């Protein structure tokens, strides 16, 4: 029998890099399609920042100036941050918590799927939705809000905000590992709505009470929005490097927490 067993012994799988790329691509494509068709996701995540922008940036205050620029320009940066944060948190945490809690992730883990492909797909999808939101705000701002800036600044703003999806995707992965399928959306809202407010994403930062402004200094959306505002010339002129460092540190902490959850899951049974 031992010879028979030997004959069946393992060889490492040799996937061509092309095959691996195909898996990553399909995983991301279907994650994107899945969320795109999920009305819960598109309705809340895509339409809220856009609706807020139209209402507060285009209908109500379009002609006013704020922080050295026009309101429609200023709010692209803040609602852009808000949109990116929502798309990323819901895009990762809600799906992960549900897949984990209701058994789907186990089906995937039992298959030869490269585990990293699953997480990469969620992050990439969040970045794509983030880009869609920011571009929609650009389009509305340019056509209806008279937003004008050099093309390079639009590109930098888009790049910054889409890169800003990463810390929130990391946070979403951590949350997805420590919330259940039913509690995840509520937990996300409980964190993301107050955090948005305190970071000056709804009410411009300078109008916030002093206490709140101090809390903001430790909140990642504050730092992302300040980077975005810096590009449109409305930032608080703090060190750009510091903002990036805070976001990077936050990302690493969240990934560390997610990793603990990942390892804990190997030992637990769900479903």
């Amino acid at each position, binding site marked *: *029998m031992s010879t*028979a*067993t*030997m*004959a*069946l*012994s*393992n*060889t*490492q*799988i040799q*996937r061509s890099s092309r*095959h691996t790329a*195909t*898996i990553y691509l*399909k*995983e991301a494509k*279907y994650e994107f*399609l*899945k969320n795109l*068709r*999920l009305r819960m996701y598109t309705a809340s995540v895509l339409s809220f920042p856009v609706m807020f922008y139209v209402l507060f940036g285009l209908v109500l205050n379009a002609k006013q100036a704020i922080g050295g620029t026009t309101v429609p320009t200023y709010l692209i940066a803040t609602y852009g941050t808000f949109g990116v944060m929502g798309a990323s948190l819901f895009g990762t945490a809600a799906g992960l918590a*549900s*897949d984990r*809690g*209701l*058994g*789907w992730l*186990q*089906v995937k*883990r*039992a*298959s*030869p*799927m490269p585990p990293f492909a699953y997480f990469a797909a969620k992050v990439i999808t969040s970045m794509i939705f983030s880009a869609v939101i920011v571009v929609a705000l650009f389009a509305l701002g340019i056509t209806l809000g008279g937003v004008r800036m050099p093309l390079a600044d639009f590109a930098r703003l888009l790049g910054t905000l889409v890169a800003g999806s990463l810390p929130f995707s990391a946070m979403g992965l951590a949350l997805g590992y420590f919330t259940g*399928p039913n509690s995840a959306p509520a937990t996300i809202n409980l964190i993301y709505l107050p955090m948005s407010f305190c970071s000056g994403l709804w009410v411009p930062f300078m109008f916030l009470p002093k206490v709140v402004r101090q809390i903001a200094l430790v909140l990642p959306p504050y730092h992302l929005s300040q980077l975005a505002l810096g590009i449109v010339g409305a930032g608080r002129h703090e060190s750009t490097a510091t903002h990036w460092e805070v976001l990077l540190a936050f990302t690493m902490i969240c990934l560390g927490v997610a990793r603990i959850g990942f390892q804990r899951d*190997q*030992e*637990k*049974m769900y*479903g």
Partner: protein
Amino acid sequence: MIAALEQPQQTDTSNSDVIVASLEGVNKNYGNVRALRGVNFRVRAGEVVALLGPNGAGKTTAVKLLLGLMQPNSGRARVFGGDPTNPANRMRTGAMLQVGRVPETLRVREHIDLFSSYYQKPMGSAEILGAAGLEKLSDRKFGDLSGGQKQRVLFALAICGDPDLLFLDEPTVGLDVESRRMLWDQIRKMVARGKTVLLTTHYLQEADALADRVAVINEGEIIAEGTPSEIKAKTAGKRIRCITSLSVNTLRQIPGVTEVKEDRDAVELHAAEAEPVVRELLARDAQLCGLEITSAGLEEAFLALTHDTARDGKNSN
């Protein structure tokens, strides 16, 4: 009924010594709950094995250990002579698990396309759809499918990589009779392709209909193992049903009869062996009609086995 008990699978004897999956002295605890206690269990190449037991017996735990989704507290789980978590082994394994929620907005063919991409040599998508009976549903979103159709999609995902070893965890749980039979047919088709199959079930009829070998598991221990007929032989018995003018009392006195029940216009007798009882019945009542003989079935066998363990404390065979 009796015909259904015959096994559809002929084991390829050249392969039959090769162990493709095993649990070796496995203990698995969840906190204070002992899900598996010293389980030894083997699946040979080409075999269809049913792990049969009530809810909470440890069936799903056994499957998850063999899939490398969790680790035993002691002992070890092996597939293809190696670690179940080894990607090369996962490449040769397919699994149908109990899932609370599958992404509902993806279409059937999209789910299959994605899972097929994980494997080195997947079956063609037309072949997969055909094998799972999903040809007409490939454009439907998962969320729009019925329970039976959903199970068939999960089955399709398990077989799409053309794996050598197939784990089916309660494949037909919650399905109506027709959907169940349809899935059985699909499982039999995979068996005919030479797959090794481990299925868990608490439907005794299902183990009987599909498996070459049955391992009965209860409270984390394997309490009996053998072919479906061997398992039944342990509590041997036939059910004899007929319409007769003989009184219940007369019937009770026929040697070999252990139990008599009246059922509408017929009576149902239980006996260890059917032939002597039937001879006696026909001799005493020439008008006897509607004679049916069936095996007592795994249901009774299973109840008897689990009761035995409860009574004797520990009876490992």
